């Protein structure tokens, strides 16, 4: 009986490794396929995401540059649920990650800090929890960071203030705590982009002791 089970497992492995000619060395396709596997997709918007293709550049909702590197993921308003995956951090040429208005839960993977070409991170209107990873401060080209309407907790990392390209930040309607940064790009972010965070104190006051907010 056990031998029969073992035989079936071996046979299935043969089929999987040999009959499905894989696109090896395409880590971007693998990373996106990992995302597909962790998302629930009732509208089949990811149906074209076939890992047997040599790269993801012909997949729908994906845009590539001339060198076949992924520059955009456009999955806003696509009825997706499930959670993000750390493999997304491998998309080194990604400029636009548009996952807004879905039902994605879980936390923001710290690996997104590796998306060194990222210009826009739109995760707003989902069910995302956990904290905003401070490592997002490494995203030196980030212009748009829209995380509003989620269930994020913890502070707004001060590391974000070091991103001089940051122009649009919206973290409203979450459960953030601590103070609102006021330096660097945060000088020009309107206060209502922070509203609806019951535990968020006011703007940080320079030169005074930080509030004892029990926020970490």
């Amino acid at each position, binding site marked *: 009986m*056990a031998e029969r089970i073992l035989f079936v*497992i071996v046979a299935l492995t043969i089929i999987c490794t040999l009959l499905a000619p894989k696109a090896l*060395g395409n880590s971007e396709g693998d990373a996106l396929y990992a995302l597909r596997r962790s998302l629930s997709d009732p509208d089949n918007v990811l149906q074209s995401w076939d890992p047997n293709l*040599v790269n993801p550049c012909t997949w729908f909702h994906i845009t590539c540059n001339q060198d076949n590197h992924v520059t*955009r993921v456009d999955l806003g308003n696509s009825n997706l649920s499930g959670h993000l995956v750390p493999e997304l951090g491998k998309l080194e040429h990604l400029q636009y990650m548009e996952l807004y208005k879905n039902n994605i839960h879980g936390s923001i993977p710290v690996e997104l800090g590796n998306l060194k070409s990222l210009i826009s991170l739109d995760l707003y209107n989902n069910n995302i929890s956990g904290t905003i990873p401070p490592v997002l401060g490494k995203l030196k080209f980030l212009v748009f960071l829209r995380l509003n309407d989620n269930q994020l907790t913890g502070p707004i990392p001060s590391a974000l203030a070091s991103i001089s390209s940051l*122009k*649009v930040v919206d973290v409203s309607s979450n459960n953030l705590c601590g103070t609102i940064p006021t330096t660097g790009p945060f000088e020009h972010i309107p206060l209502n982009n922070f509203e609806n965070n019951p535990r968020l104190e006011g703007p940080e006051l320079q030169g005074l002791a930080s509030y004892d907010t029990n926020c970490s």
Partner: protein
Amino acid sequence: MLKYPIFTFFLFLPFLFFVCLKPASASFPEANALLIWKATFKKENNSILTSWTHPKASGSPCNWFGVFCSIDGSVNSLNLTNANINATFYKFPFSSLPNLASIDFFINRLFGTIPPQIGKLSKLVYLDISKNQLTGTIPSEIGRLTSLRTLHLVENQFNGSIPSEIGQLVSLSELALYSNKFDGSIPVSFGNLRNLTFLYLYNNSLSGFMPPEMGNLINLVEVFMYTNMLTGPIPPTLGNLNKLQILDLFENQLSGSIPPELGKLKSLEILSLANNNLTGLIPASLGEATGLITLHLYANNLSGPIPRELGNLKSLSDLELSENKLTGPIPASLGDLSNLEYVFLRQNQLSGPIPSELGKLKKLVFLEMDENQFSGHLPELCSGGLIKRFTLSNNRLSGPIPESLKTCSSLTRARFDHNKFSGNLSKEFGVYPNLTFMDLSDNKFYGELSDNWGSSKRLETLKIAKNNLSGSIPPDFGNLNQIQILNLSSNQLCGGIPKEIGKLVLLLKIDLNDNRLSGNIPHELGSFSSLNYLDLSRNRLTGPIPKNFPNSEQLFHLNLSYNFLSQTIPVQIGKLTHLAALDMSSNSLTGEIPYEIGFLSSLGMLNLSHNRLSGFIPESFQKLPGSVDIDISYNELEGHIPNGKPFQNVSIEKLRGNKGLCGNIAGLQPCKVPPIKNHKIGKGHKLILIVAIPLIGGTSTSICTRWHPDHVRTQKEEFKRCRR
């Protein structure tokens, strides 16, 4: 004297008593020992082992679930497959089950390590503890199990090196260690396992060289060592393994050449050396391994030609040589491989024509030869009518599409792009009921788009960019209700954009730029709610931008530049909150820039240059993202440049050629009066226009035609050429 015999009888009675009851009490300690182990099991909802209780009458565990005994009542086999046992081996009665020959604990929750006492089970023939949560190394004492024929430690978390003592298991026929974390080298002592038939070491971290001593294992039938970190050469001694049917070394770091000795393997059916660092030639002798059904050499550094001797592999059905540096032509002899279903030669440096002999392959399902240097004309290829995936993109192929491909109704995915194919497109392709992807871009096809395309109803991607197509886009394209990407750019298509395109609600990307399309933009294009990308630039479109257009929040790219669009920019444009690039330059747009443009909160590029926009720049531009690249040059704008980041570093080139812009920018005249709220003045302007239009209307039409004589002339020419 009589007294003594009776006395001795009574003396011996207890002895007899024990002798008679021996068979029963032999298993009594075995039952006890098993119960001592059972007592260590963590409590689970497990009714399976309720039979494991102290037997009152016999003391025998032989009726317990999963316990089997031999005739003499001694436990010889334990089969607890999938019994949800959550325990360790630390109290397992290794010393108390002397006749135990078979242990099968496949799929449980056993954890901890294998104790060295395992060596005491000297009669063990079968050991399967696969799919548990065991950790640690294999104890060297395992080498004592010299009767062991089957060892399965699959799918646990074992680590460390495989002990060389495994080489002492001379009866071993089946060794499965796959999906663990074993590291280190394969022991040289494996060469002693003369009875080994099945060797499964895949999905571990094994490193080092494959021992040449493996060539001694002449009973091997299947070897799976894929997904490890093996280095060094493939031992030529493997050529001695006469019974070998499967050799799978996929995804390692093996180097050196493929040993020609592998051609001696007459029983070999599956050979995968893919995804390694192999160099050198594909040995011609591989053509002697005539049992081969599957040959995978892809993703290596192989060079030289494809040997014509591969044409001797009459059973071959799956040939994959992609992603190497192979040169030379496809040997015509491959046409003899009548069982070929999958041929992957993509991403090499192969050249020459595609041999017509390949047309003999009736069972072909996948043929992928893109990214090579093939030239010449295509032969007939879909003679079996089974080809589903057919990619020839990025080669130097020319000539027409052969008849068999025109009628190849099995096609699901076809790529001919980036070649020099020519011919009249309306005659080259037929109807493909299963086709989802077709790319013909960057070729020399001419002629018109036939109605046929509308009948390939499963099309999701259709790209025929960069050809010489003429005529108009058939309204039948409105039947392509699965289409998501449509790219007909860089052709000479004329006529109007059919309104039927508006029915294609799944469209994500429409690219019609660089053609001679004329007429108005149909307002039906406003119905797309999922559209991401729309490029109609460099055409001859006239009339207004429809009021309800565009309507998709997900639109990130909108390019209408280089047309003859007139009237005003619709205020609905403000809804495109994800628009990153908006280009409406080089048109004849009039009126004011709507303040709703300020709502485009994701804008990275805005080009409204070379139009006839008038009035003031809305103050709402201050709300645009600070890094937006704005070009409003060559319009009729006036007034001050709004404050705020978008205009902070703007250069004069992006502002020049207007009526009277002023501000604190180098090259611009400074503003004389303090800025007044734009919208008030705007209203005033509108009032004047309402009065003036009837007066000016009459004169302006004649003026317009005088200013743009080319425009009118071209339209007339088009009307002659575009029949539909």
